[in-house]
C-alpha cells in the first residue's frame, strides 16, 4: 500500500487506529479457521460509523478490497484478510448505545460482545437469545455477518430472528439504515438478506437487537444411552410428542471423552449422551419434563439426571460448550464441520460417517444440535503423520456431500466463508448462485467488501443473468442449439 493512502487512513482513524507493521499484522492473518492465512496490508480500527465511512470511501476510490472483522472467532475463514486489502476491525466500536426494556430492544455497536448484551439486561430479567458457543468473546457484528446460531436456536431462532435494524456502510461509503426499530419497515427485507451475508454486502456500524424475557423456569436433563442410535430415537420421540425444547444436544463417546478430559463435566461414559433443556412457565415445564423422562427411559436410557440447581445446569452445559476445544486433548489437529441434515436422516448419515471414518483410518468425534439436525463432526488427525491431513480434508468434504445428498446443507451456523465456497456449487445450481449474486451486484458492484468469499467464483456485475446466453457461434449463425 502506498504511503499516501496509509497516511489518509491515519488521518481518518488516528495514528493508533492503524496497524501496518508486519509483526503486528500477523495477529490478523486468520480467524478461528487457522489453516488459511493471508497478511493484510493494514488493519484499521475505527471508533465510529463516520470513520468507517471515511475508510470505505478511500477503499472505493482506490479499489482497495476490505474485510470487516469482529473478534475473529469465525470458523469458516469469513474474516480471512484478502491480499492487497485492509482489515476493518470493529474492536473499538463496542458501546451499548441504548437499552429500551419496555419495548425489548437494545441498540449496540458491532464490536459489542454477544454475552455483554445479556449481561446488560439480565438484571431486569431479559436475555439476548442467540448463543453461539463462542458467545463470551464473539461480537454482535460478527454474529450479524454469519447469522450465528447456537444451542438454543431450535426454539428461539438465529441472529436474523433477533435483528430488527442495521446501520450499514455500503461498499461505496454510503451510510444506510436497513429495517428499523419497528416491525415491517416499508420495502424489501434488507436486514433479512444482509444478516448472514458474511461481510460481502457492507460493514455493520450499528445494530438494533430484540431481547427476550427470561422464562420462569429452565430445566436441563442429561440422559445416557448405549448408542447414538438410541439417543437419536429419543430425540425423535420428543419431537413427535409435540414439544419444542429450548435445546437438544447430542454427543458421541469420543466427544464425551474429550469433554471429560478437558472440563470434568462428570458425564457418564456412554455411547450417546443427550442434553435436553426445556423452558417456560413452571407448570408447563414440569409436565413436559416428565414426558421427556418417559421417552428417554423408553428408548433405553441407562442413566438420567435432572439438574437440581443452576450450578449443576451450568456443569451440564460446560462439557458441551467446551467440546470443540476439548477435542484438542485427544487429537493434535482437527477439522470442525457444520453440516445440517433433516433429522430423520440422522441414523443413516451417522452410520455412513462411521463407515467412511473406518475406511479412511481417521477418527470422527460427533457433537450435534440434534433438535435441528445440525452436525458438528470433528475430524481428528495428526499433521505430523504423512498424508493424514489430506485424508482428513477429504473425509470432511465427503461428510458434507453426505449432508447435501440427505437434503441438508453444508453449513448451519459457521458460514461458507473461504472454507466451503467450493462446496456451494454442489449444493446449489449455477442459476441459484447467479441469482444470489444479483444481490451482491446491487450492494457491491465492484466487489470490494470481503471479495472471494461465499461464492465459488465472482460474478461480473455487468454480466447478463439468465439460464441461457447464446454462444458467440450461435449469434454468428455458425452453430445451432437444439
Amino acid at each position, binding site marked *: 500500500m502506498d504511503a499516501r493512502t496509509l497516511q489518509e487512513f491515519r488521518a481518518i482513524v488516528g495514528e493508533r487506529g492503524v496497524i501496518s507493521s508486519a509483526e503486528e499484522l500477523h495477529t490478523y492473518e486468520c480467524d478461528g479457521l487457522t489453516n488459511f492465512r493471508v497478511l493484510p496490508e493494514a488493519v484499521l480500527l475505527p471508533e465510529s460509523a463516520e470513520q468507517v465511512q471515511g475508510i470505505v470511501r478511500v477503499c472505493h476510490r482506490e479499489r482497495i478490497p476490505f474485510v470487516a472483522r469482529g473478534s475473529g472467532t469465525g470458523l469458516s475463514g469469513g474474516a480471512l484478510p484478502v491480499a492487497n486489502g485492509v482489515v476493518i476491525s470493529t474492536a473499538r466500536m463496542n458501546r451499548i448505545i441504548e437499552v*429500551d426494556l*419496555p*419495548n*425489548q*430492544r437494545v441498540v449496540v455497536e458491532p464490536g459489542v460482545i454477544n454475552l455483554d448484551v445479556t449481561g446488560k439486561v439480565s438484571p431486569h430479567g431479559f436475555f439476548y437469545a442467540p448463543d453461539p458457543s463462542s458467545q463470551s468473546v464473539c461480537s454482535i457484528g460478527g454474529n450479524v455477518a454469519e*447469522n450465528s*446460531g447456537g444451542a438454543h436456536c431450535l426454539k428461539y*431462532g438465529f441472529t436474523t430472528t433477533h435483528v430488527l435494524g442495521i446501520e450499514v456502510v455500503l461498499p461505496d461509503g454510503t451510510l444506510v*439504515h*436497513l429495517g428499523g*426499530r*419497528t*416491525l*415491517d*419497515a*416499508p*420495502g*424489501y*427485507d*434488507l436486514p*433479512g*438478506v444482509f444478516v448472514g*451475508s458474511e461481510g460481502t454486502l457492507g460493514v455493520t456500524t450499528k445494530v438494533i437487537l430484540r431481547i427476550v*424475557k427470561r422464562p*420462569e423456569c429452565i430445566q436441563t436433563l442429561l440422559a445416557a444411552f448405549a448408542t447414538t442410535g438410541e439417543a437419536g430415537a429419543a430425540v425423535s420421540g420428543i*419431537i413427535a410428542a*409435540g*414439544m419444542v425444547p429450548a435445546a437438544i444436544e447430542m454427543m458421541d463417546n469420543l466427544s464425551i471423552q474429550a469433554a471429560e478430559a478437558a472440563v470434568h463435566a462428570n458425564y457418564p461414559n456412554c455411547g450417546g449422551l443427550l442434553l435436553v433443556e426445556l423452558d*417456560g*412457565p413452571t*407448570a*408447563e415445564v*414440569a*409436565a413436559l419434563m416428565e414426558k421427556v423422562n418417559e421417552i428417554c427411559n423408553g428408548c433405553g436410557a441407562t442413566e438420567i439426571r435432572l439438574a437440581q440447581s443452576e450450578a449443576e445446569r451450568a456443569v451440564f452445559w460446560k462439557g458441551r460448550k467446551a467440546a470443540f476445544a476439548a477435542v484438542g486433548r485427544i487429537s493434535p489437529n482437527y477439522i470442525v464441520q457444520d453440516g*445440517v441434515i*433433516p433429522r*430423520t436422516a440422522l441414523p443413516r448419515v451417522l452410520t455412513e460417517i462411521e463407515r467412511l471414518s473406518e475406511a479412511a483410518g481417521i477418527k470422527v468425534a460427533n457433537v450435534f444440535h440434534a433438535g*435441528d439436525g*445440525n452436525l458438528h463432526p470433528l475430524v481428528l488427525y495428526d499433521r505430523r503423520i504423512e498424508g493424514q491431513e489430506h485424508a482428513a480434508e477429504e473425509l470432511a468434504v465427503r461428510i458434507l456431500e453426505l449432508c447435501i445428498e440427505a*437434503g*441438508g*446443507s453444508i*453449513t448451519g451456523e*459457521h*458460514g*461458507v466463508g473461504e472454507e466451503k465456497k467450493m462446496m456451494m456449487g454442489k449444493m*446449489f445450481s449455477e*442459476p*441459484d448462485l*447467479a*441469482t*444470489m449474486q*444479483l*444481490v*451482491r451486484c*446491487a*450492494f457491491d458492484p465492484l466487489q470490494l467488501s470481503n471479495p472471494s468469499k461465499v461464492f465459488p467464483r465472482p460474478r461480473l456485475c455487468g454480466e447478463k*443473468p*439468465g*439460464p441461457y446466453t447464446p454462444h458467440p457461434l450461435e449469434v454468428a449463425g455458425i452453430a445451432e442449439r437444439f
Partner: protein
Amino acid sequence: MAQERSSSGGGAGAATAEIAWDELRAIVGPENVRAAEPADAVAGVLPRMVAEPADEQQLAATLRWANDAGLAVAPRGGGSKMGWGNPPSRLDLVLSTTRMDQIVEHVWADMTVIVQAGARVALVQQSLAKHGQSIAVDPLWPETATIGGILSTNDSGALRLRYGALRDLIIGVTLALPDGTLAKSGGKVVKNVAGYDLPKLATGALGTLGVITQAAFRLHPLSATAGKTLTIRTGGVSDANRLLVELQGSALAHTGLQARMQHDAQAEVDVRFEGTAAGVEAQCAAARRIAAFAVEEAGSPEVWQARQELWSQANASALVKFSVLPTRIAAACESFRRYGDKAGITWKIVAQGTGLGWVRFEGARLKEFSRALLGLRAELEREAGSLFIAHLPAGSEETDAWGSPGDAFPVMVRVKQQFDPRGTLNPGRFVGGI
C-alpha cells in the same frame, strides 16, 4: 371494486406492438389462457389476459415470454389481497398460480413442509393438522389466500408474537425470475446459512422481484389442548397499552396478545395461552394478577377473528396497517382520534403486542380523509413507525400505499433493477414506485 382503468395507451411497447398471444397459449395450453374480466382488475387496472400455468417450468416460460415481449405481469394467488399496494403503472397479464396447489413434501418427523405457491393456506393447514402440526401463521382469509400470496404480502396475525413472522418460518424458496431463471435459495432444513437468504428477500416483496413457485417452511406442533383466551376490559387506550406492555414484559408464554380499541373509548385486551392443561391454568392465574386493575370478561377464541372482521363489508371504509413501538400504541390511537374527530371519522383498531396494528376507518367524508392519512403517516414515521394503506374507497388510488422506505431506498431500487431490469413484475406497485 375500484373504478377500472385500462392500461393500454400507456408508454409501454406492448401497447402498440401486436402481442403474439398464441405463443403464450402454446406454453400453458390454450384452455389456460383467457381474456381478462373486470374481476381480474388489479387495484383498478384491467389486464388483457390471464394465464394459469400448470407447473413452475410453464410459469417460468410464461414469465420469460412476457419479459421478452415487454409485457407487464401481475402474479396472483387466491386474489384475496390484490388491492394491496399501488395500482400498477402498466398491466398486460395476470399470472395465476392456482393450478400449482400441491403439497410437495411433508416429512412430519422433520417438522418441515414444501408447498407449491398456489396452495390454499387452509387446505395446507388441514393436511398438516393430521400430524398435529402447522405453519405457525394466522393470515387473513386462509380459505382463499395462497402460500405465495401470504408470503408476497407478508401477512401475519396474532401468532407472530410467539412464532415470528413468515420471514422466520420460511426456510427455502424457488423463485421464477422475469428472464425465466428458476432459482432456489435456502433449503428444507431448519438451520442453514449457505448463501444469501433469498427466502426473506422474497417475503413481503409483493412479487416485484420474482414469482414464488414453491416454498419450504419449518413447522410447529399444534397445542395439545384447546388453550384458553382471557379478555380484559380496561379503562381506555392508555390502560390497554399499559397492560399489553406488562403482559409482554412478563415471563408468560402467551401465543396471542392483542388490544381491541375504538373511538368511543372502549378498549379490551385479549391474551391466549396454549400447552398443557396445568400450564394454561397457571398462566391464566398469573395473567389475572397482572391485570388485577381491570375487569375480566367472558373469554372466547372468537376474539382472534377481530383482525379479519375489520374487513367485513370493507368497500366504504379505509383499512390501514400501522407499526409502532409497543409502548406507543396508545399514542398512535390518540393520533387516529385527533385526525378522525376533525373529519367526523370513526375508527376501530386491533393492535398486537408486537406493535403492529390494523385500523378500520368509517364515515361520510372518507375520501377527504384519505389525504389526511398522509399526515397521520408522517406523525408515525417521525417516531420510527410506519403506516401502510391497505384499502381505500374507490377514487383514492393516487394515495401512496406505502410511505417512506427510508435512506436504503436506492439499494432497493438497485435490487429491483438486478432482478427485474425491464420492470416486468408488478411495475409501480411497491414502495417508491418500484
